[in-house]
């Protein structure tokens, strides 16, 4: 499943994922955003992995926020990732 969201005036976030037994699996966030340090992407993917597929945007954003407190996200946000995840889930 595939979802995309472009933050107005910012960057594109792409999410590819699958759903196994009601939970997000094989989650891959990508896009033309800027992120420091680069390892933060693995933490974001891991934070999304296993979330209930019924999670709402606020819950998804919160899961991302918990692992990005010390990362710099430029042109996107936990909320933008949440929108892309929801779009993937409804694709």
């Amino acid at each position: 499943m595939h979802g995309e969201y472009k933050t107005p005036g910012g960057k594109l976030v792409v999410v590819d994922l699958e759903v196994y037994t009601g939970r997000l699996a094989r989650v891959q966030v990508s896009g033309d955003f800027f992120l420091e340090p680069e390892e933060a992407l693995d933490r974001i993917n891991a934070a999304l992995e296993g979330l209930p597929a019924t999670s709402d945007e606020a819950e998804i954003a919160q899961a991302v926020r918990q692992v990005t407190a010390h990362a710099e996200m430029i042109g996107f946000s936990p909320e933008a990732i949440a929108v892309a995840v929801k779009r993937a889930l409804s694709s």
Partner: protein
Amino acid sequence: MRTNWHDYDWQLLRNGPLSPNLHMALDEVLTYEVGAGRRKPTVRIWEWGALAVVIGRYQSVKNEVDPENLGRYGFEVVRRISGGGAMFIEPGNTITYSVYAPQELVAGMSFQESYALMDSWVLEALKTLGIKAWYQPINDITSEGGKIAGAAQTRRGGAVLHHVTMAYDIDAAKMVQVLRIGREKLSDKGQTSAQKRVDPLRSQTGLPRAAVIDRMIETFDDLYGLNRDELKPEELEAARNLAETKFSRKEWIYIIP
């Protein structure tokens, strides 16, 4: 504490054509060399040795390129260490440069501010060529006719790497066959066609590509001083190793498939 451009003895590297992977590797090596203080702050003008699509650190290969057309036209995919978007590279159509500076030059600045600062000399150079260009946050140089260039930055090992690809000319019809540019990406640009988004320097200046580059170098030299330098053998050796062990490997290029 923040420094300024005049605090440094800037060096210029302008080599002949190199392979795309070696360019990726040189950017990593030279960033760390400047960060470690083994190399003075440097501006590097690139010459491309091959057709390439350069994707950002966080982009998915399959989302950005059309594999069939990529092969048909003889492009290779390389992945750089900075974020940002895909660049469509035809050697004679592209002007690419890197600036490697100590992080103190952008200390305390927002990313938006540091992008604009690192290209302020380029906007000045374009002005002398009669092009009214400005910074379009976060990372584009644009003019009334459209986008001229895209920049990307990353901060590593005490240094900031700022690299930029400018469109000298562009085969837009080919670009849209090789790159996938989705509708979502254009959603807030008010543009329906990827061709319309780029306004190349050739049509705006009527100058040969080398003359545009010369003017950029002159402008930097006038503003801050710039001394001609050469790559050190150990820098080239380190970059060759990194090109072989990292940048040419599938594990890196397809780190996000």
